[in-house]
Structures are given as structure tokens and as C-alpha cells.
């Protein structure tokens, strides 16, 4: 699969990620298999076995160990990657916080999958949305192309001197990870030049400048200051993500924003959505526009950092905004994206009403008709003189 020319390939989403990893050629990949991510590390293990990469491949005995090994490797000074899904993500949980707080630029592909129980292997965003507060940058991709592009850009974002945070890139499990679709790759040389050589900061293997990583930092220490610097890095990350996207656009012709707004300029109603469902939403926006409805859509790309001002700018003028979450925060007023978007629009004056929708849990399919139903709710709400009720509305929920 060595690509000398930029070329369009027919690949699964997992193959797209593995190809990006091969072209980056990280020093270390530590991983444990889990559906639907397994294909990524399986393909990568083959690259290693075939001598196509120089990577030290660590087969860990669990995701907890895989992330521990990734932390050790990154702290030692190696460019490090891993991949996971669902229960594997959950098992990494305590180490995710450690990786972020040590400011280790690990890049991880998370192929979104529901969490147990009931046991379910299909797509939803519960895994990574549950991990939104662990201090990692989160980029959500829509399709095969973005699976690849995000993973290449993630290396630069994570390693940027103003950021130095781990980055996770997401794709929808099965819907993208297992489906065949088109992906235009850069050449190996282009990717190598784009990511450049890795320059670790304070690597543990630099014996002339010994450092301690991960000591106790208690009551009279700097734990709180440490956390404040993590937040500062996250704030700087927004600008860095955008700058690197601009640089990547010159190379690839594909420009990605922190959000992906579609026909929102004069929109009266808009839907915010994450991942592969964005295309269906844009299709319905076009259909409604053809009927004279001022509809728009925003796709979430960076969820951490959350670019609140961009949402206010794009959809703050709408009468009603619907937010579609493919995960839930039980007992809260809606899913994670809803809570974030509603908060981002709070200071708009006048302020749009924001309504929560839940869809696609455990891989439940989401059809064009379901999105039209959501838009119908928004349009009805926009016509009312009084506020509409804000309970969760489920899309494609079984009635019986």
C-alpha cells in the first residue's frame, strides 16, 4: 500500500486510520484489540511484521496496560500512538487523565462504540463523550476522508509547543470504521514532511537532563496550578487546531474548521450533530431549503476544546436550535453536546431556544425521515409565541 502519488483508495474507515498511522510511522504503538477498532491495530501489526514501518509494536494484555505503555513510551521521548473503542476506552479511564496531565502528545484513534450494558458492539458516542473531561483534545470525523486527515493533523496538534496534549480522533464505529468508502491519501513523503521529526520535551531518556515524571503533588504542592495550565493549553489548542488545518489545506485542498457550519448564515432553525449523521442532516437541510425553509446545520468537529464562540457566531441568530446527541447524560437536561451548545448560546441576545434530541444509541439507524421529524419539531417551536417544552426527544425510538 505504499503510495508515491496522492491517490483515491477504496478503504474501510479503519484502513484509512491505519494508513495515516503507517505514513506517520510513529516510534511506538501500544494496543489491545477491541471491536470495532481491532482492524486498525491488526493492519498496523501487519505493517510492522512486513517491515513497512519502524515502529516498536507493543501487544499489551489490556487497554489499561496499552495506555500505561503509551504513557511510558511518550514520557521516554517516543512519538506514540494507540487505538481503542468502548469498553477498552473505559478500561483506559484512569490513565487518560494521567496522559493529559503529564502533557504527553499521544495520538489515539477511538472508534466510537456503545458501552455495556446491555452488551452492544455498535456505534454511539458514549465512550468518548464520557471521557470528555479527561483533558484530551477530541476531534470527531465524519467520513473516511476525515478519519485519515484528522489522524495526520492530530500528530501536529498534540506535539505543538503551545499545546502538548494528547489527541483522540473519533470515527463512527461500523458506519465508517467497517464500511468501504473513498479516501484520498497524501504521499508518504508529504505526510513525513508535514508531521516533521519528533522533538520530545523533557524526555526521561535524556540522561544529561534528568526529570521526574508523575511524582506525588499534595496539599502544599502545585496540583491546582498544574490543572490551570492544562486548561490554558486547551485554550491555546483552538488556535493551533485551526492553524494546522490551514496548513493542511494547502497540502491537501481540504479545509477543516473547528466546527463545520452548513447554510447557517440566514438560518431560522438549525441542527447540531456529530459524526457520520451530518451528511444526512445536510441532505435534509437542502431539501427544506428547496421548499423555502431557512434551515441549517452544524457538525461538531472539535469537542475538546469546545469552540463556544464559533457556535454563537454560526447559529446564535437562529430562533430554534436542535442538538442531536448519540449518547446521553442520564439525569442531566440532555446529552453532552446539547449541554455544551446550549451553554455556548446562553449569552446570545436574543437567545435561541435549544432542544435536546437523542438518536442512534447502540447503533440504532438514523434515517432521513428521522431528521425531518427533528426539523419539524424545531419549525413548530419557531412558530410558537411561547417556549416549547425541553424534554429529550428520541429519534427512531420503538413505540411499542
Amino acid at each position, binding site marked *: 500500500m505504499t503510495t508515491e502519488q496522492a491517490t483515491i483508495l*477504496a478503504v474501510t474507515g479503519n484502513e484509512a486510520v491505519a494508513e495515516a498511522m503507517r505514513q506517520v510511522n510513529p516510534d511506538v504503538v501500544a494496543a489491545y484489540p477491541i471491536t470495532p477498532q481491532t482492524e486498525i491495530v491488526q493492519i498496523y501489526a501487519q505493517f510492522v511484521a512486513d517491515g513497512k514501518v519502524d515502529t516498536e509494536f507493543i501487544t499489551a494484555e489490556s487497554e489499561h496496560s496499552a495506555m500505561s505503555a503509551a504513557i511510558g513510551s511518550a514520557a521516554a521521548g517516543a512519538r506514540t500512538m494507540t487505538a481503542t473503542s468502548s469498553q477498552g476506552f473505559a478500561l483506559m479511564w484512569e490513565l487518560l487523565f494521567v496522559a493529559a496531565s503529564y502533557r504527553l502528545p499521544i495520538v489515539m484513534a477511538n472508534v466510537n462504540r456503545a458501552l455495556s450494558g446491555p452488551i452492544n458492539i455498535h456505534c454511539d458516542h458514549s465512550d468518548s463523550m464520557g471521557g470528555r473531561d479527561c483533558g484530551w483534545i477530541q476531534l470527531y470525523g465524519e467520513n473516511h476522508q476525515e478519519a485519515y486527515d484528522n489522524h495526520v493533523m492530530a500528530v501536529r496538534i498534540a506535539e505543538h509547543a503551545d499545546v502538548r496534549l494528547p489527541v483522540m480522533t473519533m470515527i463512527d464505529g461500523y458506519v465508517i470504521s467497517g464500511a*468501504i468508502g*473513498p479516501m484520498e491519501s497524501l504521499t508518504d513523503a508529504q505526510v513525513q514532511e508535514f508531521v516533521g521529526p519528533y522533538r520530545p520535551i523533557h524526555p526521561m531518556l535524556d540522561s544529561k537532563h534528568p526529570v521526574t515524571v508523575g511524582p506525588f503533588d499534595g496539599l502544599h504542592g502545585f496540583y491546582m496550578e498544574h490543572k490551570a495550565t492544562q486548561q490554558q493549553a486547551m485554550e491555546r489548542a483552538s488556535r493551533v487546531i485551526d492553524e494546522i488545518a490551514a496548513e493542511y489545506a494547502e497540502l491537501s485542498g481540504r479545509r477543516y474548521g473547528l466546527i463545520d457550519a452548513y447554510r447557517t448564515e440566514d438560518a431560522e432553525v438549525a441542527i447540531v450533530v456529530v459524526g457520520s449523521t*451530518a*451528511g444526512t442532516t*445536510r441532505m435534509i437541510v437542502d431539501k427544506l431549503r428547496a421548499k423555502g425553509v431557512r434551515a441549517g446545520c452544524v457538525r461538531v468537529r472539535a469537542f475538546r476544546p469546545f469552540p463556544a464562540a464559533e457556535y454563537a457566531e454560526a447559529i446564535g441568530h437562529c430562533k430554534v436550535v436542535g442538538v442531536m446527541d448519540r449518547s446521553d447524560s442520564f439525569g442531566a437536561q440532555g446529552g453532552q453536546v446539547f449541554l455544551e451548545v446550549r451553554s455556548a448560546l446562553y449569552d446570545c441576545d436574543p437567545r435561541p431556544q435549544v432542544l435536546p434530541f437523542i438518536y442512534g444509541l447502540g447503533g440504532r439507524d438514523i*434515517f432521513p425521515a428521522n431528521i425531518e421529524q427533528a426539523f419539524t419539531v424545531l419549525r413548530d417551536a419557531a412558530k410558537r409565541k411561547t417556549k416549547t417544552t425541553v424534554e429529550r426527544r428520541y429519534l427512531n425510538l420503538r413505540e411499542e
Partner: protein
Amino acid sequence: MQALTEIRWHGRGGQGAVTAAKMVAEVALGQKKYFQAFPEYGPERSGAPIVAFTRISDEPIQIYCGIENPQIVVVLDPTLLSIVDVTKGAPEDAIVLVNSDLPPAKLRAKYHIEGHRLFSIAATRIATETIGRPIPNTPMVGALTRIAGLFPLASVVDFLRADFGKKFPPKVVEGNIEAITRSYEEVQGE
């Protein structure tokens, strides 16, 4: 989006429906078309009914949901006709291609199929005679190539030589090419 063709595949685990769905997508790539192929994931048991989908378009494909209103339905196992509603959601003018020794008229009578444009091809028999194994997927692609008109037969043959050529010995590749060519010629309509 009017240039979008949606194909739904019905088969049983082990018949290669998913491979066929992907093969059609990959041939489309060679024809500079946009494509998408995916199975409906479930328990992967040999013999259990499975569904797979292919979309082919002149424009980038933005939707990823399952196909509810297929223009083409491909049935790799005729016994599915009595247990699965294979034409569910298919419009009246949809093409329905069934792997069967029976000509379309007799197939209609036997399984009480109403409406649609019915085609049949003895794919299992052709596969046994050409490839030496009763795997009907590549013959079904040959028949589909003829009746769907999505791309020329030569493009499928070229793909098989290039792609199968990397994975299988020449005898298997040539067997598959013969299977596809025969099915292309022998598919029957009404």
C-alpha cells in the same frame, strides 16, 4: 443526487454477499464514481440471513444509513424469498435479481413475487462449474453488471485480474472471470 444507485444484497453467511457488495464499490472506484459498501452488522453465523448495501453515485455520497428503498435488490439464496421480505421498500420499477435455476416466470409463481422487474441467474451452478465451489457472489456480480448498466463487463474483469490476482492463484482468478462472463451472458429477464 439523482445519479445515486442504491443496491441491497440479501444472502446467507458464507455466500459472499458482503464481498460482492464491496466488489461492486471497488469496481465503481475504477470508473471514477463515488461509492460506499457496508454490511448490516450482526452475529456472523454461517447460513444466517444477512444484508449488505452498496451505493454508487456520480456525486460524493453523504448518507450512511441502511438502504430502505433500493433500486436494485440482489438475492444470493432463493430460499430467503420465503423467509425474508427482500423487496421491502423497493419501488415498483426496482430490479430484483435472484440466484435460481428457475426462469423469472416460474420463480414468480413459486414464491408469489408480485411487481418489480425480476431477473434470475443460476449463480450457484455456474460457480460450481467454473470456480469449483458453490459460492454464488461473483456470478451474481456478473449478472448485475449486465442488468444494472453501472459499468462495463470489462471493468469488472480488469478489477478481478488486478485485485483477485494479488490474493489468489491464476486458476481461481480465471475461474471467477469465467463465472462473471457466463452470468453476464446467461442472466434471464421476463
